[in-house]
């Protein structure tokens, strides 16, 4: 799988969260430097969107209906997706970060720090660099 955009291009982002307001806030937050190519509110539609839209970065909530964000990420990885994954979660716990890393995520943003951290985390992920929100 080859990305259609290079690091110099603004990253193409897929937003996945079951809360519309969070999606709206995230879209606004990353708009200056990113292109939001699509959104999804559950695991299966996120998988379909990832396949169809081929985003550079997927911002993924962990606590989704039907499937967890971890399961969606593992599924993407298993199916050969090259998209960088940035988790966006309420859980400011090390266990979650460890689990996210195990699955192959490159960023972890705690929702309470969305405004200050998300754009940076997405940009860093697009560049291939890890970003983790402070867990406090």
């Amino acid at each position, binding site marked *: 799988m080859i990305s259609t955009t290079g690091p110099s291009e603004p990253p193409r982002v897929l937003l996945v969260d079951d809360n519309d307001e969070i999606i709206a806030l995230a879209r606004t937050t990353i708009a200056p430097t990113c292109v939001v190519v699509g959104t999804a509110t559950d695991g*299966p539609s996120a998988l379909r969107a990832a396949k169809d839209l081929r985003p550079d970065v997927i911002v993924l909530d*962990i606590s989704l209906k039907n499937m967890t964000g971890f399961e969606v990420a593992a599924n*993407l990885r298993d199916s*050969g997706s090259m998209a960088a994954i940035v988790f966006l979660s309420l*859980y400011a*716990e090390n266990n979650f970060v460890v689990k996210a890393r195990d699955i192959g995520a490159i960023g972890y943003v705690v929702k309470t720090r969305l405004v200050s951290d998300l754009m940076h985390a997405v940009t860093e992920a697009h560049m291939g660099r890890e970003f983790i929100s402070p867990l406090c």
Partner: protein
Amino acid sequence: MKLRLPRLAFGRALLAIAIIFVGFAQFSIARTEDLPSPKRVLMLYGHDPNSPGAVAFTKELRASVLADSPTRAVFYNELLDLERFPIDERQPELVKDIVEKYRGYNFDAIVTDGTMALKFANERLRAHFQSVPIVYGLSFEPGFDYSALPDNVTGRHHLLPFAATFELARSLQPEAERVVIVGGTSNQDAPLLATAVKDLTPLAGGMQLDVWQDWTFASLLQNLRMLPPRTIVVLTSFSRDRTGQVINSGDLIASVTRLASAPVYGIARNWVGDGIVGGVTMDFGDDGMRTGRLLRQVLDRTSSELPLPPREVARSVQVVDWRALERWGLSEDQLPPGTEVLFRTPTVWSRYGGYILAALAMLVVQSGLIAGLLVQRARRTRAEVDLRRSQASLNTSYERIRDLGSRMLQAQENERSRIARELHDGIGQEIALLATHLDLVRTNDREEVKRLNAEIQTRAREIARNIRDLSHRLHPATLRLIGLAAALETLRLEMSHSGIAIAFTHDNVPTTLSADVTLCIFRVVQEALQNAIKYSRASEVTVHLAGSPGRLSLSVVDDGVGFDVDTKWTKGLGLISMRERLEAIGGLLEIRSNPGRGTRVEARVPLDVIQSVDETRPEVKAIRASTAGSL
């Protein structure tokens, strides 16, 4: 006409009366004339007429003559007493006496008792009672030639059955070594004894044969007492002993047989019953009856010219006394066929067999009924015991459920109160402070706004965290998101804030555990840790979770003060909820604790349950299949 009619009727009536009267007169005359004149019979007794044999003979003879016969007979008895008075000595006087006595009596028959009487009648009286037929009976004395008797003599005589009696004795006592023949000294005894000796001598074989004759009655009894048991005693006739004492043989039997130390046999039917074993016997009663028949035929003759009925020889009867057989231990099986066994005491069985069988049958039936009733009662008792037991167990269960119910309601109320308190005192308080800060933002200067903003942000994050923690305690959503082991690690971190050192290790825990199992194990660990923190005063708690083929094992061990497990079960819901949760998924809970020696909680869950539960999540697989290889 009217006047003549009654006169005619009267005459006729008179005539009828006359005819009836004449008819009656003729009838009564005819009846008187039809009765035959009684027959006169002279009985000449050679034996003692009071001896049992003679008594039976006379009785049967008379009965036989008089029964069913129109003949009337009158008996005239003459006692010759020939045993004591030999006939030759006083013959002329005796004959003269009888002739004088019965002059003018036209006897229709003379009956003689015994051979000597027959001889007397035939030889001495014949001249005087020439045409009178003689009928003889009770004739058993030997040495008389019956064929020489004239035509107008008939009767029956016996052949002395000594030989046959001896054969019978031999068959009953095959081991006998000695035979003793006993007889008296009278002129009637001697020929009988001689006959017996003559008859038995060739039959005795190697046996010792003794003849006891010229003895006193006392010495006879004395010697009979001392006979060895393997002896056969044959009693012939004993009507006079050595001292001249006249004894009736029949009267002698009872004392002889009672005292003898060996079985005694005899030839008279009437002796059987007085103690002798038996013998081939002369039946004098039967003899009397049959002689009586002959006499009746003689008397019933319509003419004295008609021939007399033919003479007969009496048949001997083989008879034994069952009581004597028993006394001497002689086997009935040894008896020759056709032997008549008298005085057999019926056995209890033969007498009451029917009753015994009926009683036994009733006993069996009653026993069966009683047994049946007992079995039924036992079953009923058992059923009642079972019933009482199950009722008791039901009551216990009911009590337990009621107790659990009330404890559950209490626990629910406690939990609600805790949540309410947390919402009100914790989160509510925080939000109130947040609102206050927001209010301050509106009124203060720029620098102050910046500071307040930062504070608001901190407080809002704090609120979010509190809410998340509360939610997590209510239901550990992280289980679903990060799995059992990671969730337990998180739990460990949370609980470690209490100041107790908690170690958590895990080994080979399957990644695909069902939601039921993960929640169950999580709750058990949570409960066990809470108990340890609250009650154990332990410094350290170790939690270990291990997966092995077929099983998932959990242990929570503390070094605290321990407790009495049995009493704890009945309080609170903690231990019960742990057990109930585990049993619901096929697992087991074991708690070992002793006061002062720490507590060990162990739980085991079978793995096949886990796998089967795991298969109930097809959703994930379906999604994986739809996305596989698509990117």
